[in-house]
């Protein structure tokens, strides 16, 4: 009985998707139109996940930051201040949208929208639960890497289009930082790919039903976390923003909701990084008793809280330190990790030693 209920909750989103599919069939659509319709439904679901996560994590970050700094944090609106983000969003939506006169208008305005494209595309292949990925690509992990490579472009567009020295310097920093840290990040994921022999997200999750890869690849996991922070431009790697040096970096000339969109995208990106980390290293949606998607959200929550903890604990790294750390420390270590993993796998698979 209990197991039946648990199974129902495990598959609840699959049932909802099936219901919508039946509804399309009932409306008399043919197969192609139904597929397009389901694609739209998945798209809306991904947007909903993005926005809800961002809403929750913004307030959670402020709460946790308050706890770390021994102050109450937002505590006025709603029970214990939990409605603060909603009020902030309404305030930002009603603010005037100021565009500098000499800004490169099209580039400036589109940057705030395009910044959402990489996290949205990434979330399409993330398995949120049993069979719960909008797309299960055979090159899943590689697709994620390819898509996240695009996230430098909106950053650059924001910096360039604002026609502001601080913005441009922030963008230059952001682009060089994201390109540098992408390399050790890819290498850290490669260790897991070597073990599983597949790039498919669901297969990577399934390969972890005995042991999570965080125990087999601890070094890769740590490198992944560091690079994840750098890729999302979060403190201690928030050099593109760097408010003590560059006013607000790439965000300097943005106001109102467009400014908020960048922060929304930052939280979406962070959620994506936490999701990939969960899927690849922490066993994905697998776990006892509770439904898969609850496990998934729980694990991402833990990772996210760790990212917040990092932000409010470490001071900002300097530009030269950033590059040295990336190229002279993380890249060699991640390469060594791949080499050792390959040797161990070779020995293991050929039955020598053991």
């Amino acid at each position, binding site marked *: 009985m209990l197991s039946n209920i648990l199974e129902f909750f495990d598959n609840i989103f699959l049932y909802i998707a099936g219901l919508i599919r039946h509804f399309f069939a009932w409306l008399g659509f043919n197969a192609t139109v139904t597929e397009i319709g389901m694609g739209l439904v998945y798209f809306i679901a991904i947007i909903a996940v993005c926005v809800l996560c961002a809403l929750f994590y913004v307030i959670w970050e402020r709460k946790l930051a308050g706890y770390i700094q021994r102050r109450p944090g937002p505590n006025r609106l709603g029970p214990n201040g939990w409605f603060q983000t909603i009020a902030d969003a309404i305030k930002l939506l009603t603010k005037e949208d100021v565009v500098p006169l*000499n800004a490169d208008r099209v580039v400036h305005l589109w940057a705030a929208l395009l910044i959402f494209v990489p996290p949205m595309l990434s979330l399409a292949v993330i398995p949120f639960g049993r069979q719960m990925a909008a797309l299960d690509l*055979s*090159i899943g992990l*590689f697709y994620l*890497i390819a898509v996240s490579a695009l996230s430098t*472009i909106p950053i*650059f567009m924001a910096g*360039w289009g604002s026609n502001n020295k601080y913005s441009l310097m922030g963008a230059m920093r952001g682009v060089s930082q994201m*390109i540098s840290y992408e390399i050790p990040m890819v290498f850290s994921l490669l260790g897991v790919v070597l073990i599983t022999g597949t790039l498919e997200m669901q297969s990577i999750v399934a390969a972890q039903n005995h042991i999570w890869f965080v125990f087999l690849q601890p070094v890769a996991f740590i490198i992944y976390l560091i690079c994840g922070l750098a890729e999302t431009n979060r403190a201690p790697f928030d050099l593109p923003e760097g408010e003590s040096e560059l006013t607000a970096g790439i965000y300097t000339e943005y106001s109102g909701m467009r400014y908020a969109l960048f922060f929304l995208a930052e939280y979406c990106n962070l959620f994506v990084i936490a999701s990939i980390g969960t899927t690849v290293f922490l066993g994905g949606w697998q776990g006892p008793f509770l439904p898969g998607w609850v496990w998934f959200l729980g694990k991402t929550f833990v990772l996210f809280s760790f990212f917040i903890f990092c932000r409010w604990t470490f001071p900002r790294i300097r530009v030269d330190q950033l590059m040295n750390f990336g190229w002279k420390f993380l890249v060699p270590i991640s390469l060594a990790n791949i080499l050792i993993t390959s040797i161990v796998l070779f020995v293991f698979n050929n039955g020598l030693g053991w």
Partner: protein
Amino acid sequence: MMQSIVFFLLAALTLGGALAVINLKNIVHSVLCLIVTFLGVAGIFLTLRADFLAAVQVLVYAGAVSILVIFALLLVNQGDGKMAETNPYSRFGYLGVAAAMLFFGFLSFSLIKTTWQTTGIAAAATSVGEIGVRLLSQYVIAFELAAVLLLVAMVAAIIIGREVKDHA
């Protein structure tokens, strides 16, 4: 039917992006349109079931373009007002048209002349494994040579960069 609609949409995107690259006067706008072109090509790869190639196209071309943008900026930043004329090659319009027509004619000539072989084997569901095996067996020399070439370029870049620093 569906496939040809998608193909024509992607082709329009690719060609439109490419046209914008050569017609825009501002080089940053040109580079941004180049990204659109690359993404369109990646989409065409996807319709041909070359999913790995499409991802490589996005990662290597569309992603690395941002570095190109930085170079463009470092080379041509001329201050206010002059940005509108930073894509100097858009001046050589007629020459460009002639060169493009010549290249197009050459390409279509060879495309028509070639007899395309088709095998009865269906396209694999995923190409990445096969590509990996081929790269490290059949084409291993070319693969390693490309790697050495990149290494040489990288070392050279570092040496040049260091030298400039020493003189300054």
